[in-house]
Every structure is written in C-alpha cells, then in structure tokens.
C-alpha cells in the first residue's frame, strides 16, 4: 500500500516508514516500558538461575552437619540470644544440627520454583480445555462445571489442601517424590476451576463474534474453531492469570511446608529436592526463641519472589489489555 502510494506521489516523503508489528510485539514493548514489571522479571530470572545453579552457588553441602557449630546466628550478629557469635563461614548462620542455612535456602528454591510452575502448567491445560468445552457447547457440560465451581468456591482452598495432604500423606501417593507429587496433585485439582471459569466466560462472548460465525459457515470443524480461532483470543487473559497463579502456589507451598505438610525434608545426599522454604520456615518457627534468624532468609525469599511475580503480572495485564490499565 505505502509503496504504491509513494511511487505515485512526486515527493517520496509520504512513504510510510513503519515496520509492521504484531499485537504481541506491541504488548512486549509496553511491558518493557513498565519499570516495576521489568524489575520483577529480572528478580524472577535471577531466582530461576539460582535454582538451576544451586549446586554451584551454595557455599556448603546443605546436608553436611558441622558439629559444634549448631545454632550460629548470621555472620553480622555479634551476640545472639543464645550467646553465640556469627561465623563468616556461614553467612546466614546454621540450624539446630549445624547445617548451613544459606545453602539450604538456595537448595530450597528448587522446590518453590517447581511447585510454582509444574501445577500451573497442569492447571492451565486442564482448566482451559474444560472451560473451552463448557463455554462452547454450553448445556449440561456448562451446568456441571458451574455446580462444581460453586462447591469449590465454598471450600476455602487452603482447607482443602490441608485435608487432602493430611489424608493421603502416608499413602503410596503421598510417598511419591517425597510428597511432592501429592502436593502437585492437590494444588492442581483445586485451581483448574478458576482457569476454567475464566476461559468459559471469554469463550461465551467470543463464540457470538462474526469471525467464529464466518469460520463455522465455511464448514470448519468445532475442534479447529476452538483451538485455532478461540484459543488465541483467550491467550492474553490466560497469561495474566498464570503470572498471578504462580506466586499463589509458592505461598501455598510455604504455608503447607510450615504446617509440616509439604515436602519431607530428606537426608538422602542423592535427592534432588532436599528441603523447601516452607520446611525451613517450620525449622525457624520451632526454634524461634533461640534462633529467630533462620526464619528471616526463607521469609525474605518468599516475599521477594511473590512480589516480583505480582509486578510481572501487573505489567502483563497492562501490556496485554491496555483498557484494563490501572483497574484491579
């Protein structure tokens, strides 16, 4: 268009010199302009790198017991409540058994990150499939979904997790992967409902649009309409929801770990998942009078990651849907 116009005009100045950009590129540029979101993203990436390189970064073996050096406060503390002085070798001190807290926190990030991401993937896949079917076909499927959601909304999430974990923790299901599998399962089984509801709502309004009607009129199959025409349009809200879902799961893991219901801390040197931030918080809570500093590092990590993800989510929402800017 621009070129034809340009060749016909005597002056070449009107030639449009703008590269075409997809909506995704535009959204990405809007996202990069948001400083808080960018900072959040950098923090998330740093934590992911830390998780990936845990064995290289950690100063000590997280399982090694340093005898005689139990309950040390962080290095900067001159004299803690139990009369011990910090040792520069253990930057954040040691726990009851003399294990390095910093190394344990670094290894603990593995669990928090995996608990943030793996159930989210399951939730998104299952939730959007069910939401899509319910929204597109309506009728009984839709009714069934809405009734399930009603019940799920009446049941506070955390209570459900606790009950599932208490009941099945000692069964074979709860033993898989040191309890991690059951944790994934419990988190996924509750949270798909929110995704399904979101997708259903979007599909309900989208399926009345002209482009769907056009597709149907030329005989496109239902499955193709759902995945090629509807799904890309739901993707935006879905990405935003994902960004808010991940920190929610990390918090839940920390709470459940704190209640002693998450991953079982292991002493097996070959284990990949050694401890979690939640379990570390529990360690800190049990020794709160003698050694409150153990609580500090995992609490700061949870706080940082959660706030970082929230900023990323806020930025994504503003970037993907500029109309929603500034609304909650």
């Amino acid at each position, binding site marked *: 268009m621009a070129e034809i116009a340009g060749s016909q005009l005597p002056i070449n100045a009107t030639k449009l010199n703008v590269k075409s950009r997809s909506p995704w590129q535009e959204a990405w540029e809007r996202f990069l302009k948001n400083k808080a979101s960018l900072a959040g993203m950098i923090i998330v990436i740093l934590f992911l790198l830390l998780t990936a390189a845990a064995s290289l970064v950690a100063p000590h073996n997280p399982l090694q017991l340093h005898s005689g050096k139990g309950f040390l406060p962080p290095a900067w503390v001159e004299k803690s409540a139990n009369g011990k002085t910090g040792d520069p070798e253990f930057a954040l001190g040691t726990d009851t058994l003399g294990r390095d807290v910093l190394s344990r926190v670094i290894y603990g990030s593995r669990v928090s990150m995996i608990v943030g991401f793996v159930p989210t993937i399951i939730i998104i896949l299952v939730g959007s499939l069910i939401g899509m079917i319910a929204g597109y076909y309506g009728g009984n499927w839709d009714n069934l979904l809405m009734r399930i959601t009603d019940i799920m909304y009446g*049941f506070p999430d955390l209570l459900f997790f606790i009950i599932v974990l*208490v009941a099945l923790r000692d069964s074979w299901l709860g033993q898989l992967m040191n309890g991690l599998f059951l944790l994934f399962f419990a988190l996924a089984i509750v949270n798909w409902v929110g995704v399904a509801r979101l997708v259903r709502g979007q599909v309900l309004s989208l399926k009345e649009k002209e482009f769907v009607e056009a597709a149907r009129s030329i005989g496109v199959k239902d499955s193709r309409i759902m995945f090629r025409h509807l799904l890309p349009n739901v993707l935006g809200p879905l990405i935003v929801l994902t960004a808010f879902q991940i*920190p929610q799961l990390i918090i839940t893991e920390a709470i459940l770990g704190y209640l002693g219901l998450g991953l079982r801390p292991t002493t097996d040197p070959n284990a990949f998942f050694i401890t979690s931030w939640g379990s570390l918080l529990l360690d800190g809570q049990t020794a709160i009078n003698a050694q*409150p500093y153990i609580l500090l590092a995992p609490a700061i990590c949870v706080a940082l990651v959660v706030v970082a993800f*929230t900023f990323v989510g806020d930025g994504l929402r503003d970037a993907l849907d500029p109309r929603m800017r500034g609304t909650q």
Partner: protein
Amino acid sequence: MTTYFLRRILWMIPVLFTVALITFVLMHAAPGGPWDRDLSARQVDASTQKVLNAYYGLDKPLWRQFVAYVVGDFTKEGKFDCGLVCGDLGPSYRIRGRSVQDILFEPPKGKSALYSRFGYSWRLGLLALSFAALIGVPVGVFAALKQNSWVDYVSLLIATLGISLPSFVMAIFMIIIFATGLHWVSVVPKEWDNIKAWILPGAVLGFGTMAYAARLTRTSMLEVLRQDYVRTARSKGLHERVVVYRHMMRNALIPVVTILGPALAALVTGSFIIETMFSFPGMGRAYVTAISQRDYSMIMGTTLIYVLLVSIANLTVDFLYVVIDPRIRLED
C-alpha cells in the same frame, strides 16, 4: 429478590453436604485408624482398639458411619443420637471425653463465651477487620484526594506490598522486628488479657485486607472525583468536607463492600496460620494442632465450621451489596 436469597441459603446445604462427604472420605482414606498413631507413643493394643472402635462406631461400614455422622444413629439403649444436622460434631479422637463442639465453643469455667476458642478467634477477626476498615478506607480516600503526591505513592506502594505479601510472611517480619528485635512484645505471649498482646496478630491478620481496601477505595474515589454531581456539589458552594463525605464517599464505598466477602474468607483461613505463629488460643490453632495429631473428627468438624462461616460471609456481603446499591437487582 427473596427467592434469590432463599435459593442461595438453600444452596448452602448441598455445598456443606459435599464438603462433609469429601472430608469424610478423605479422612477415612488415610491409612491407619485414629488410635495407632498416637504421637504420645502410647500404643493402644489390639483388644482396646476393638473396644474403642465399637465405642465410636468405627466398626460399622463406611456409609453407616457417614449417615451416623450427618444424620445420627441409635445408641445401644435405643436412644437416638442426633448428628451433624443437630450441630453435633462428634467426639474428639485425641482429647478423650470431649466432643469437638465442646472444645471449640465451651469457654473455661466461670468465663463468658468470648473466652472459648471460637470466641477468641471471633474477637481477633473483628479486631483485624476493624483495623483494615479504619485504616484502609481513610488512607484510600486521602491518597485519591492527593493524587500523584508522595502520600499517594507511599500508600500505593504499601498497598501493593500488603496485597501481594502473604500474611504469614508479614507475621514473621513483625515477630522478628517487634518481638526479638525491639522486645516490645513477647514472642509467645502467655497472657491474652493484656491488650498489647493482641496488637501484632490483629494488625498482621488485617494487613492484607487493609491494603486491598485502601487500593480499592482509592480507585473508586478517583472515579467518583470526576463525576458531574461532584462538580455540581462544588459549584453550589458546598463545603469541601460535605462534598467529600456526603457526595463522594457514599458512592465510592460501594465497591469496597464487595471485597468484604473475600476479605472475611481470607481472615478465616489466614487466622489459623497467624494464630499458630502467635500461639493464640483460638480455633485456628486448635485446627493446626488437630492436623499434627491427626485428630480426624476434630479436623472434619473445624473444616465444616470454617466452610459454613465462609458461606455465611459471602451471603451477607451479597445481601449488603443489594441494600447499599439500589441499582443492583439480582435476578430470581
């Protein structure tokens, strides 16, 4: 309208029933009975277990047990022992000789109902909610009136942190700062008659709601700020105070009421973490103790109470919403 709320109230019954069923099935799916994992390491021998099982009706088939739990059952003497429908939550498996509702609702001898476990939790929740409303709403109003000033930015920052940070992480920071650092309060308060002990748990529990209320108040105040009727009120020469209180806030606070439901639910579920962290003698800590002791009947009973509370809270908020905003008409 009446039909709508009647249906909502009736809908609570299947919800509670399903929750009871799920909880019941899961609690019984747990390997081992309630007796063979006594944490006090007092092993119960086989014959005693049999007697105990017979006493608590655990030798009956599972469906009979469920019916007995929900509706009730005949005792050996032929007397009908009413179950959940009469508010009977059954006996605790760990604290022998006491029923679940006794543990939760019975105050210590000579004290009022406020001193039962439920009473303590109720008071803490009320404190947290008033903290949230009395600080969150004025902060939001003030931030909106001074939009883009430093007051606005600081309150927005705190609000963002308050919304995204979970209350139990906040509790850890508070304990480290005020209890182990500054020694203003003791880490584990023993005396709950002293109001000072209540400040930290109340503030921590209410912080998230406070932040949310502040942010929502700000957003809706900013919207109202540009309305024509506000300009009219100003041009009439009304006092600024009258404009803010009578014309703006009345309308701006409607959306804030809607968050009360989720807020109450968050207070309920947040309470058991906070109560445990501060060794608060409420229902939440009883729940966490029951979890660690695998006291199935106690876990089940407390879960049902929590679910009932959340449902009632949601219903009340929907009702309030209609009362406050006459434009909202819920379809029957």
